């Protein structure tokens, strides 16, 4: 693992817009060949970081390296990275073929080679035979593929993707997620993917970084981030979490250390149910139950104050939600699932 090549490295990168620190001291290592996601809410600095890798924006301080080479002040056309834009940015006056060939035209490659490569790459993104169309004649999903083909045509070392699936509908988005991941594994190029959609980030990434207020809160493999969130922000942004602090935490665990517990780790039992030593519990009343098809989400008003979100899979027949409302329950979970986390964030 230590032998892995670092494709992109951020060293204490800061970027200010006026007085606002959009990126406030980011340190990151992104490995060659991995699918890396920058996840965060809007204004968290993830897109600015992506733009600084591309060279559209430059840090006020710090350093950005591409394969060990300092590229901090270099213009976009001197970097071996390509971008898939959020709005696709296809050239409307050119055909699909001309769009895809743009990079090779700039490099003055021979016509025969260009044509062959365009055909190959359109095959890869499953758009064969559309080279003569204009971008305006394509659907959103097709434009997305053209943008991808255009950026992949000369096998850049790194491909940057700025919320590329944001404009697509849910079904198409899920289909494209799988396809993007497949393409990435086939071409073996480092993909750096920006999104605010945590589900997308968990599905596609080898590793991901959670951005908040211009900083990286946490980075690692998806299951690491989900199972072991290190801050309150990460716990709340990636999936849903119940957070207990101070006296409430002490009543449950015996320690005032802040902790989180994921809703799916909690089971609902009858009041006064017995629990083992390995388990903890909190009593309360079901305030609401929301049927969500695959599972049902319950909101429990706890006796010790606050609310608890619990998710139960709908294994049997559908729950009788009306009957559940107002019922007293005991929420029980295993001590192993308790995650102590840092305050703040």
């Amino acid at each position, binding site marked *: 693992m230590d032998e892995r090549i670092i494709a992109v490295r951020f060293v204490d990168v800061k970027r200010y817009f006026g007085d606002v620190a959009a990126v406030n001291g980011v340190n990151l290592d992104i490995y060659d060949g991995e699918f890396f996601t920058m996840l965060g809410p809007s204004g968290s600095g993830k897109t600015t970081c992506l733009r600084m890798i591309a060279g559209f924006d430059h840090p006020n301080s710090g350093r950005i390296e591409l394969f060990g080479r300092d590229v901090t002040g270099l213009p*976009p056309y001197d970097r071996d990275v390509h971008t898939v834009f959020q709005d696709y*940015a296809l050239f*409307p006056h050119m055909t699909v073929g001309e769009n895809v060939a743009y990079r090779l035209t700039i490099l003055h490659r021979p016509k025969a080679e260009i044509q062959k490569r365009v055909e190959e790459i359109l095959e890869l993104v499953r758009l064969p035979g559309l080279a003569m169309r204009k971008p305006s004649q394509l659907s959103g999903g097709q434009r997305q593929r053209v943008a991808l083909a255009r*950026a992949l045509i000369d096998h850049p070392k790194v491909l940057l993707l700025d919320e590329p699936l944001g404009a697509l509908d849910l079904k198409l988005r899920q289909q494209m997620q799988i396809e993007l991941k497949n393409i990435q594994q086939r071409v073996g190029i480092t993909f750096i993917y920006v999104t605010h959609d945590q589900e997308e980030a968990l599905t596609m990434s080898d590793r991901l970084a959670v951005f908040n207020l211009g900083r990286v809160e946490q980075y690692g493999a998806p299951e690491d981030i989900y199972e072991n969130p290190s801050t309150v922000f990460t716990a709340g942004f990636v999936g849903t979490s119940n957070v207990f602090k101070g006296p409430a935490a002490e009543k449950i665990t015996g320690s005032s250390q802040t902790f989180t517990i994921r809703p799916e780790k909690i089971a609902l039992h009858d009041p006064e149910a017995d629990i083992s030593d390995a388990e903890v519990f909190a009593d309360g009343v079901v305030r609401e139950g929301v049927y969500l098809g695959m599972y049902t989400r319950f909101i429990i008003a706890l006796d010790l104050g606050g609310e608890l979100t619990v998710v139960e899979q709908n294994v049997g027949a559908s729950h009788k939600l009306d009957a559940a409302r107002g019922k007293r329950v005991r929420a029980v979970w295993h001590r192993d699932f308790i995650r102590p986390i840092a305050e703040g964030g």
Partner: protein
Amino acid sequence: MAVTPAARGTLPDSIGKKFSRFFHAHPGLSIFLLLLLPFLWLGVVYFGSLGALILQSVFQYDSYSGRVIHIITGENYIELLSPSNLDIILRTASMAAAVTLADAIVAFPLAYYVVRYAKGRVKALLYLAVLLPLWSSYIVRVYAWKLILAKEGILSWFMAQLGMTSLLDKVLSFPGIGGPSLSTSMIGMWIVFVYIWLPYMYLPIHASLERLSTSMLEASADLGARPASTFWRVTLPLVMPGVVAGSIFTFSLTMGDFIIPGTIGNSSLFIGQAVLRYQGTAGNIPLAAAMTVVPMVVMALYLVLARSRGAFDAL
């Protein structure tokens, strides 16, 4: 609170409500009323006069009696090919082309700066500066230029202060476009035309630059194109419809103008002046009409050429 159908039925419908319901049920009628006025204007006043003009241009003119005879003939158009008329047409067309080119060269970088770099107040101020001249009378501005360009005017005074009088003299000694002073030369007329029509070139270019999204330019740079390459491959083709729209204004406005050639420059005629002269003193309305058709034909040819060269591909 749901309103029951019975409760709604007791409320009498107002006239306005009935009126809007009627139009909702008859969408064709609404469109007809909407287009009635513009159609009357365009159809009758505009196309009507255009038809009358073209009809006039093929009537015969009897130079002895000075009367228009209603016989269809092509002789007015043949008359246009006489050396003196051809001279007028070529002079006007060359001036229009030179003015259009200069306006495009001045307007493009300015619009590019205003759209891409200028922010807030500076942007508003520059935009206003381009439009401000349109707020004062065209005649006043032309006469102001006559004074600026006069032999004893401020421009030659300024050149003298800079010790550049000999340069000015050299420019004015060019055959064909020179003259005794700037205000009596073709160069002077060209300067005034370029100034007067600049906003008409600037505005469409500004509008199409506003439509050009930054990510388009970033995508080009991202794929390895240097700034000059991005300009030729992406910026210019995408802004071309704006440049063509602007050039239609500057070209046709120059082709038809008779005030500036009558005020600045020497006694050689332009199309606008010739039309005025033929239909005024001579009363030769058919020839004047034929002369008026010339700029329209030139513009039509220009548009066909621009289209075939792909100027509108980005639309």
